[in-house]
């Protein structure tokens, strides 16, 4: 029997390794994605076995609804604040704990710990932190004579509350990535900067920060995607309120339309719009990163 040519054998091997993963991706990711897009053109009550094709009616309704505009705004504010907040604080902590400090390993563990806690548990715990009557925040503010804001009744403070909670939970993730990047940077560049008597700021801006760019781009994409998907913290803390949609983001709108208003077709439309927004944002990010690398 003749053995297959090395090139053909390599191809077969590649197929053998790739096929199971491609099948899983196709069945569990891309098929549901296509199914979702199909459903977005239907009027489908989640409890009904049948869906009726209605063309672009759901899309017209979503794009012309003032509620959807509010939801889009909430999503943009939450995502921007969550991405910037968790990355800036994560970087600051990583810079601090990259130094030889007493007990830094313990502190590193503490900073990372919230990231592995379930979002729903964090949401429930922070309900008490922000409780207007018994909460930690209220207590701390009262000690300096400041009345606690109406976290659960003022939509802007409610959005701040869920964002701050999410940043706290996510901080460990950005911290670990930045810390790994800092520890992998080239020591000789730091030494050269020190020999040149560069100030701490100049050293960070000219030497450290450029080496953190890949980590920053990676975090920008992953944190943005994760922030867009936050559901559990909002569900446990505010249920999308106050005043109806004070903290309703697009993911939460998908849930509300599908399971509360029973409009699974419309929920699929919101999910599809969200998918397209994320696709465009991700494409732009990748493009910017590629250009940065080309330079």
């Amino acid at each position: 029997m003749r053995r297959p040519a090395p090139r053909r054998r390599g191809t077969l091997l590649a197929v053998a390794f790739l096929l199971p993963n491609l099948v899983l991706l196709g069945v569990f990711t891309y098929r549901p994605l296509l199914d979702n897009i199909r459903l977005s053109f239907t009027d489908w009550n989640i409890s009904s076995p049948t869906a009726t094709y209605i063309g672009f009616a759901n899309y017209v309704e979503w794009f012309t609804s003032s509620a959807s505009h509010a939801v889009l705004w909430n999503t943009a504010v939450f995502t921007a604040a969550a991405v910037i907040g968790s990355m800036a604080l994560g970087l600051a902590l990583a810079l601090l704990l990259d130094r030889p400090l007493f007990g830094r390993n313990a502190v590193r563990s503490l900073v990372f710990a919230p990231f592995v806690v379930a979002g729903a548990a964090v949401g429930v715990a922070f309900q008490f932190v922000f409780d207007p009557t018994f909460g930690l925040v209220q207590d701390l503010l009262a000690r300096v004579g400041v009345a606690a804001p109406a976290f659960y009744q003022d939509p802007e403070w409610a959005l701040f509350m869920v964002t701050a909670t999410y940043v706290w939970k996510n901080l460990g993730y950005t911290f670990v990535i930045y810390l790994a990047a800092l520890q992998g940077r080239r020591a000789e560049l730091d030494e050269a900067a020190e020999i040149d008597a560069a100030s701490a700021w100049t050293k960070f801006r000219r030497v450290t920060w450029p080496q953190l760019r890949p980590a920053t781009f990676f975090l920008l994409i992953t944190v943005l995607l994760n922030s867009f998907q936050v559901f559990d913290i909002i569900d446990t803390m505010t249920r999308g309120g106050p005043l109806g949609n004070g903290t309703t983001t697009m993911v939460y709108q998908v849930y509300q339309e599908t399971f509360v208003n029973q409009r699974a077709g419309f929920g699929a439309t919101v999910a599809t719009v969200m998918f397209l927004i994320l696709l465009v944002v991700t494409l732009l990010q990748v493009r910017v990163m590629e250009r940065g690398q080309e330079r």
Partner: protein
Amino acid sequence: MTASGRRPLLRLTGAAATIAALALSGCAGTGSSEDSDAGGSGPVETLTFWSNHPGESKPVETELLEAFEAESGIEVNLVTAGKNYEEVAQKFNAALSGGELPDVVVASDVTWFNFALNDAITPMDDLWSATDVDSEGYVDSLREDYEFEGEHFALPYARSTPLFYYNKAMWAAAGLPDRGPETWEEWAEWAPKLAATNGGVAPMVLPDGSNYLDWYFQGMVWTFGGSYSDEWDMTFTSDETIEAGTFLQDQYRQQHIAVSNDANNQFGAGQAAALLQSTGSLKGLTGAADFEIGTAFLPGPTPGCPTGGAGLAIPERISDERKEAAMELISFLTNTENTVKFSQATGYMPVQKDAVDHPDMKPFLEQNPNFRTALEQLEVTSSQDYARVLLPGGGARIGAGLDRITIGGEDVKTVFGQLDEESTQVYERDIEPKL
């Protein structure tokens, strides 16, 4: 393709995969689920019961199911299908789209109708005949809550009404008689006294719009002669409904009534003198508070108390054998003896007419006079307005509107006008074509 050309594509693919998973988080396919016992006919050996254990009822549910197993020889899997009625409905909807269906499911006052309208749960009338269920034994108003087009789609299980709770010490400090206010006007007179003599605590706290304010306010609307709807005609803009909304807003502005996301704790910690809350919270509140709690009917002048809570339903798409076995389980869980046991463990209403005369009930009522209030109030309850319980998203929609006129301070006529318009639109789009 070069390596540098492939990189963005690979990254993009990875991102798209993540996004796709997200995009589908709320949407399943429309494939209908098959019978849960595709194995065919024959005696039913096991049943699955999906519950959220309303009123912290898991221990008593387990006890009742063990008794059923001993009596019938049928094993019952008690599944925690969510932490509230909405989560159970969500899981049930997911099962309808292709998962494994339970045999008995808890269906709340706001979730059962959509299931009935879409043939997801089965009409019970024929099953009652087949399994000798005495439907007339159930409290009429509670049984009829599940009637649609002449058929019944659930039997009452964990049924509740709102109740007026008050802190007796604060009442005494304000020099008020040991009873609830008989009218909302009387309440408006009492509230300043309560605030003045109790260190400025909120005279009354109500759960906010995300926590069923729409349910508690419904009784208030009725006492003003208004309603959310008259069957499928929306009545948010009637003079009486507007008057009730204006009264609520005035009471909120005058700090006679506070609206909170955590009303129970606020009342239990002595930060409010009174509370409107479900009878299902009676046991929990009584156990948690370190002061004496009094209970009363909701203020009038006319009776204004809606029913609420949940019933037990059977999926349409299971076999007839399973339906009959499920009906027997429901009948067992809600018979006189067991509804008395369930009520005493949770604070929910007994659902059988003769439960009040059960030998276990008399000593219990003597020891728990607050529960007697809840029981007596049952006689003046009414089924809820369609706009809240039968329209998809009705409760959440009205709750958000009530948040807007209290917390948001928006004009009552404008907000109620929008509620009227939106509710009508939902009816015409989602309900009318299916009637």
